């Protein structure tokens, strides 16, 4: 877990949880509810760093005054005259003001984007030691010492971040609508087939049993439903099927294939067939080579599902959850089949409000950013609700954070 976390400094926590899931399935051990609630908080907070960084530090500058003013002068003129729709919520009266706030280094939203990653990072460090590369993830749960104090400190930071996250939805809605109104052709920017994949996450604290055989059942109970979307249609939510379809190819990368190594796992433990190109059968054999656009040109390999290119991440997660409508209806979150509804409580600057992300008609660059803004709120609410669950578990004296059976390595 410690090593796999270090695969990535932006999303390391997720990798370390993934390897504890793998070990739990290998050993056949579950996780006590408190462990799962804390893990859900962890996985909710994990998105509070990369998502705002993406929106305000990486994507934001594309819509900033310095860029728009020079590339599209007429658009900038229009922005100066256009009032924002949600100015009462985010405080920017005109689109030009909003775009100026996106300026790198000098813009309010840029600097705030840097600053607002801190509260969730603090919460993360309080519960898991540090961010990235948490220090308390173990097979069978966590090694966090849980107390009223740490839960309180976490909850407060979640609420403060939630305030910011709610505002973000309205900022990105304004950006999207402004560009759509200026020219509907913007809807074509960054369009791609609606092919998406997600393994789901946030196991229900009372449903997960840590077995591979049960993955299809506990997968459906996840607070983000696993799913594959092909051309806009949900084709499966079964974690076994999702796993079966995975393949990885190295034809264009600087690696040798592993055809000659045999196929160690022709089937998964449940008896489903696996491709020789399934990641479980893979062996990494680097072979530096010259760059050739026709042959090999990258160190990145090509993961595919059913031999198709898929999008993954924040919006795939929302999409699969919305379309499947299988996740348990929680206190604050609900999937309707065409949307997800997020019921948010009041926060320091904003009243309680219900936000709804609807599956978009067109799939383009603007919708991706907008979905990401909703996803920030969604994942925060998962974390918030799990803090409440953790408090209640603590009231019941269920403080066990990890399974401590003496398991043997098979």
């Amino acid at each position, binding site marked *: 877990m410690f090593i796999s976390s270090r695969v990535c*400094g932006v999303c390391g926590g997720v990798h370390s949880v993934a390897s504890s899931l793998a070990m739990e399935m290998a050993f056949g051990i579950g996780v006590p509810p408190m462990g799962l609630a804390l893990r859900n908080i962890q996985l909710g907070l994990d998105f509070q760093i990369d998502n705002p960084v993406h929106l305000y530090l990486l994507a934001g500058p594309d819509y900033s005054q*310095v860029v728009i003013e020079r590339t599209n002068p007429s658009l900038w003129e229009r922005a100066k005259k256009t009032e924002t729709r949600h100015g009462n919520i985010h405080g920017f009266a005109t689109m030009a003001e909003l775009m100026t706030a996106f300026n790198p280094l*000098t813009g309010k939203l840029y600097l705030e984007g840097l600053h607002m990653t801190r509260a969730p990072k603090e919460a993360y460090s309080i519960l898991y*030691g*540090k*961010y990235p590369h948490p220090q308390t993830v173990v097979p069978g749960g966590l090694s966090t010492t849980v107390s009223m104090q740490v839960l309180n400190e976490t909850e407060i930071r979640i609420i403060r971040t939630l305030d910011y996250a709610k505002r973000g939805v309205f900022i990105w809605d304004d950006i999207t609508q402004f560009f759509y109104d200026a020219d509907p052709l913007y809807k074509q920017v960054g369009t791609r087939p609606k092919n998406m994949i997600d393994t789901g996450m946030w196991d229900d604290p009372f449903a997960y049993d840590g077995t591979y055989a049960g993955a299809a059942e506990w997968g459906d109970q996840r607070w983000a439903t696993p799913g594959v979307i092909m051309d806009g249609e949900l084709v499966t939510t079964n974690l076994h099927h999702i796993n079966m379809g995975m393949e990885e190819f190295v034809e264009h990368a600087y690696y040798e294939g592993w055809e000659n190594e045999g196929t160690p796992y022709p089937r998964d433990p449940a008896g489903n067939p696996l491709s020789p190109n399934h990641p479980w059968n893979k062996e990494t054999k680097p072979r530096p080579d010259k760059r050739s656009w026709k042959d090999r040109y990258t160190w990145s390999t090509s993961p595919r599902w059913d031999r198709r290119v898929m999008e993954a991440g924040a919006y795939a997660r929302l999409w699969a959850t919305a379309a499947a409508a299988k996740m348990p209806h929680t206190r*604050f979150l609900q999937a309707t089949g065409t949307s997800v509804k997020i019921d948010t409580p009041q926060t320091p600057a904003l009243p309680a409000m219900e936000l709804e992300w609807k599956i978009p008609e067109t799939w383009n660059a603007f919708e991706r950013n907008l979905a990401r803004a909703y996803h920030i709120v969604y994942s925060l609410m998962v974390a918030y609700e799990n803090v409440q669950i953790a408090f209640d578990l603590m009231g019941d004296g269920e403080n066990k*954070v*990890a399974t401590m059976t003496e398991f043997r390595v098979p």
Partner: protein
Amino acid sequence: MENMISVPMKARVDVPLEGEVSRLLPDQVGNVAGAHNSELQQRLLESGGRRDTLGPLKKVYVFWLPGMSCDGCTVSTIGATEPSIEELLTGALPGVPVMVLHHYQFQMESGDHFTLLLEQADAGALDAPYILVYEGSISDEHLTVGAEPWAAKGSLPTWAPADQRQRRSTPEWVRRLAPGAAVTIAIGTCATWGGIPASLGNPTGAMSVMDFLGKDYRSSLGLPVVNVPGCPAIGDDFTEAVTMLLKYMNGQGPVPEFDELGRPAWQFGDTVHLHCPRGAWYEEGNFAREFGGKECLAEIGCWGPVVNCHITERGFINGKGGCMVAGGACIGCMSPGFPDKFTPFYKRPPQTTPATTLSRVHGALTKPLRRTTQLERNREPRWRSTTPSGWAPEYDNVTIAHRTFEYFYTRIQYFRSELPGRHEKDEEKYSSGYVVPPEAAYGKEYAAAAGSQSRRGSQARHPSTAGAVASSRRIRDAPSGRSGVVTDVLSEPAR
């Protein structure tokens, strides 16, 4: 509807395709809009950002190069608060020059436009000194001669046709930029010692910046490589070290002190165990037996007593967090030799058993004595035989044996010294005649009930709160679906 004028987007890829020349020219440096980061920094310098004139330097370039890294040190640096990265970038601190950061992730320009400034630094054509920061380990590019490097930044010479260009590996950038740099800083365990990419079985020949530049390397200020280790490095450790160096360069502070491995000495002088909040559990001989325990983690695999790190003192971010603070055992991620010298994780480090056995013996002797005094000190002098609290066991719960022990222990403790405090025998009567409750206020029955309850054990609760606690069921066990006492109250504003 007003139609927008579409300006052709000069779409470019990082490296031109075969036979293709870069479409933008050097005088149009920037992103597609011709905007670039230094321009905004210039705005800051000229506008209100920085009026202060402490020291001769207005700005210092910081080139942040990634080798084989996970970006984790970048992510943790974004969280720093002592000072924050914004404060450094915007020239908020007097005496500290504006840091013109040239970072591969946050730059507006890309490709040739990104490497242009690096090239200028290489040619000595910058208008201010620069600091080289390297994140990630250095790959051995002898293994990739004639092929794509393991790690590279840009293709040079800039603007030349594709067939005359070559990918430039990051080690090559370091070789060129390090001698001219005011300081070279390695951030993170990968860059300082080799770290995960250099562990057993790696194919890339990964090594640290020190290994790569050699013992004799000196920066233009005469400093060897400065190392800020950690996996990831604590953001504050880095920004603090940079600030100290910037102040020194600007004639506003002393030379920062570094230890024999080039670490900031004030940060890495002690072991993490010395500042650990669980240290006293160790001293009293209490060790966590399972994950989640609040005691010392030595016996589930903590390397803290031998690792130079100060996360338990500084916290990970904004004073919060830290491995053992949260409950994670130290795996030595700041140390040379990580990970190979510290694996397998979650096994007892060497010498743990003799050391913990000794502290158990020590603890067995000191703990009862401390508890005795603690119990006695935890009472107001007024409350010799009863406390007015409805929560706690009464003082008269204490056994005769304990009292006898305490009597003699006190004699020894204060042998030939003065017994401190006041020495009333009974509840204190105030001059007005007021007597400390419970009897006076609640009557005898209540006192008897509270007394019998508390005698059941220290976990017993106040009668009126016990009910509330018992009814606060797990959310989903409650009859109304998802609500409990606590959660009902909370859900009001949400609906």
